[in-house]
């Protein structure tokens, strides 16, 4: 139970684990963000015959056996492989010994859109061919959403742990990080491994393709002639802990989590709502104790669809008298679904630490209807104190996270 009267704890990010189409591990991811690397290539994870275009942002150089030490990769679906590998990387990046981690009460929360829908796709193909009686037992067993978080527990052999998967679709990474923030803040857990994971799958590509929202070549957020999203994949896991814990063990602190806001449009199953998103941004600012003018850049949801980018920039202009730079790393990574806002959070933490704003690549001419400075094509050096990370999901699920530079007296 919470200690009544105790000051809420400050929460800091001390480790990052990332699996992305522009690089695996913090060093490669950071280099990719700085140089504006593109993860786009033709999709290979399923047969794309019959689609007039099928580019995506797959992770093509991921060998699960190289990252997973305890769990047999064959017992995990691709999204769980990503989340378990990213968690292991994050703990190593935090320079936290596994015995030390296991001695602390922890939370594992992993956001996702599709969980192991890649496995479900493959099971459908098997079932069409051989009937349901022949479904592979190992694949059937590993195809549940809960596996994305429980696989982290097994890989790291955690015991005093709460493991939860948060399938709140394309905003899920921010939801998962927010959950870790609250759990540490109130003193219930000492360390949280939080983020998101997803694997490219036929089901989701097909759905977006049918809606006419898959870009033929590249993803161009805020571009005048933007043509849509590219589906992507990967995982981002953050090690979060209380400031006392980080200081006590002399950890490197990437950034402080200042707060977050959640709300629901409760309006439309797929279309975003400007006023409701604006309210969510205001909630996040209030919860984090910051003002709009404090925000040094916004990492936008920025999917590159007509509807998202105009609605999102409209909401930003509603809240900010003069909007700060508004960038979308989906221009580089595509839309990695449940991993997207977790990877964007990792990018924000790195941006604060390293002093630059990641670019929006593939950019030629900004849509005047968006009217934002999207830091076109080239990263911009900047001293950053407070950054905002937006995430939107189907069903109008909004989540906005605020990160700040760690300063020892606030």
């Amino acid at each position, binding site marked *: 139970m919470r200690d009544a009267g105790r000051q809420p704890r400050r929460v800091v990010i001390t480790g990052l684990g990332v699996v992305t189409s522009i690089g695996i591990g913090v060093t490669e991811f950071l280099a990719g963000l700085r140089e504006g690397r593109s993860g786009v290539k033709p999709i290979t994870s399923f047969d794309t015959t019959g689609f007039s275009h099928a580019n995506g942002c797959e992770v093509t150089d991921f060998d699960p056996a190289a990252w997973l030490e305890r769990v047999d990769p064959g017992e995990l679906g691709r999204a769980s492989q990503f989340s378990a590998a990213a968690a292991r990387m994050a703990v190593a990046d935090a320079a936290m010994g596994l015995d030390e981690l296991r001695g602390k009460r922890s939370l594992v929360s992993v956001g996702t859109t599709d969980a*192991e829908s890649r496995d479900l796709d493959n099971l459908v193909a098997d079932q069409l061919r051989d009937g349901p009686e022949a479904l592979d037992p190992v694949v*059937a067993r590993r195809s549940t959403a*809960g596996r994305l978080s*429980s696989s982290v527990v097994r890989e790291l052999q955690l015991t005093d742990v709460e493991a939860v998967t948060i399938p709140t679709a394309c905003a899920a990474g921010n939801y998962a990080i927010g959950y870790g923030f609250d759990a540490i803040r109130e003193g219930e857990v000492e360390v949280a491994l939080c983020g998101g994971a997803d694997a490219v799958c036929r089901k989701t590509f097909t759905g977006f393709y049918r809606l006419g929202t898959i870009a033929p070549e590249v993803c161009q957020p805020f571009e005048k002639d933007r043509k849509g999203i590219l589906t992507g994949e990967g995982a981002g896991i953050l090690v979060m802990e209380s400031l006392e814990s980080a200081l006590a063990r002399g950890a490197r602190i990437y950034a402080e989590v200042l707060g977050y806001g959640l709300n629901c449009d*409760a309006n439309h199953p797929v279309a975003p709502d400007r006023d409701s998103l604006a309210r969510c941004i205001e909630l996040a600012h209030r*919860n984090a104790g910051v003002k709009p003018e404090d925000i040094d850049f916004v990492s936008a949801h920025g999917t590159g669809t007509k509807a998202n980018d105009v609605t999102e920039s409209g909401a930003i202009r509603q809240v900010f008298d003069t909007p700060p730079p508004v960038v979308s790393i989906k221009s580089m990574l595509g839309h990695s679904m449940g991993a997207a806002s977790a990877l964007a959070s990792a990018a924000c933490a790195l941006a604060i630490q390293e002093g630059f704003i990641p670019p929006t690549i593939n950019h030629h001419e900004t849509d005047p209807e968006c009217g934002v400075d999207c830091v076109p094509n080239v990263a911009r050096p900047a001293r950053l104190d407070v950054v905002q990370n937006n995430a939107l999901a189907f*069903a109008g699920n909004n989540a906005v996270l605020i990160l700040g530079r760690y300063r020892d007296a606030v």
Partner: protein
Amino acid sequence: MTAATEPRLSTLDAADTLVFSAWSAISPFGVGAAAFSDGVRAGASALAPSDGPFPSAALVPDFSARQALGRKGTRSMDRVTALAVGTVGQLLESCGPGLLEHPERVGVVLGTGSGSVQSIMDFTRDALTGDKPYHVDPALFPNTVMNRAAGQSAIWHRIKGPNTTIAGGALTGLLALSYASRLLRGGHCDRVLVGAAEEYSTQRAWLEWRGSGGTAAPLGEGGAVFLLEAESAAVRAGRPVLARPVGTRFRGFFEADGARRALTDCVRSALAQAGVDRDEVVFVSTDGAEEAAVVDALGRTPEWVRCAPLVGDTSAAAAGFQLAAAIAAGRSGHALVTGVERDGTVGCTVLELP
């Protein structure tokens, strides 16, 4: 343009206790909390012969989206979404209109398995069998995204606070409770509709059957949703305190035979967190797994409440139904709700029943 300067507004005092002050269920016993309570008390199984791989299953009788919610807006709605929207609707109806007076301060936290595996796999099947790989019904696409049931519950009932989907196998209901409690303590909303829903479908049955090598218990379905709020808020609104969730803990295990030890430790730590002596536990609402671990922790065999034999294995909804069964028992004192997820996690909630 925005008032961002005032500090976080939490309406929840640190010393305030969270309580369940209302609940609803749509279960194989029928629609409504009363049907579930009567069914559990009567102890008669709702399992009936089934044409899936399992010889029997427990379905919500005569349930369909259209029948439960009307024609409008249900053409594309799948079964788990209808169960969720319907169960939330039952709860709202029982509480009266005041509950949504400030819809942006009401959260929805809903557990599911993997959304609807039937919807997901049907969509892929259409893609694989149509003339073109994109000849799919776009109106069905949102059903394949796992936040559909929670999101549509908010859209249907106009609930604008935090809206979160939770998944964790057999522990889903307890994980949702833990999430909802932190949402309230974090000041993100004033009350939460928290629960879980699971549908019976042919596809889920085949996955469970094959995944367990044909050893799984018969499946059930349904939804259970609870109103979680501060005790002071419940009292102000004239709602009863049905139960206080005074401690919830989870543990992980990674050895094949580690579940028993993990659950014993979990029960002990949940009791310690709640400040409840093991002798004060009146009964245990169990999912049927690792009951010996509970006996180890309590030092005696407690009275058991078991709903799985009555409503089947309701997977993501199982712990939600166990919570409901504990409240429906109408007893006073302390009760435990325990769960074991074969993927390597266990959970326990301590309830104080007034």
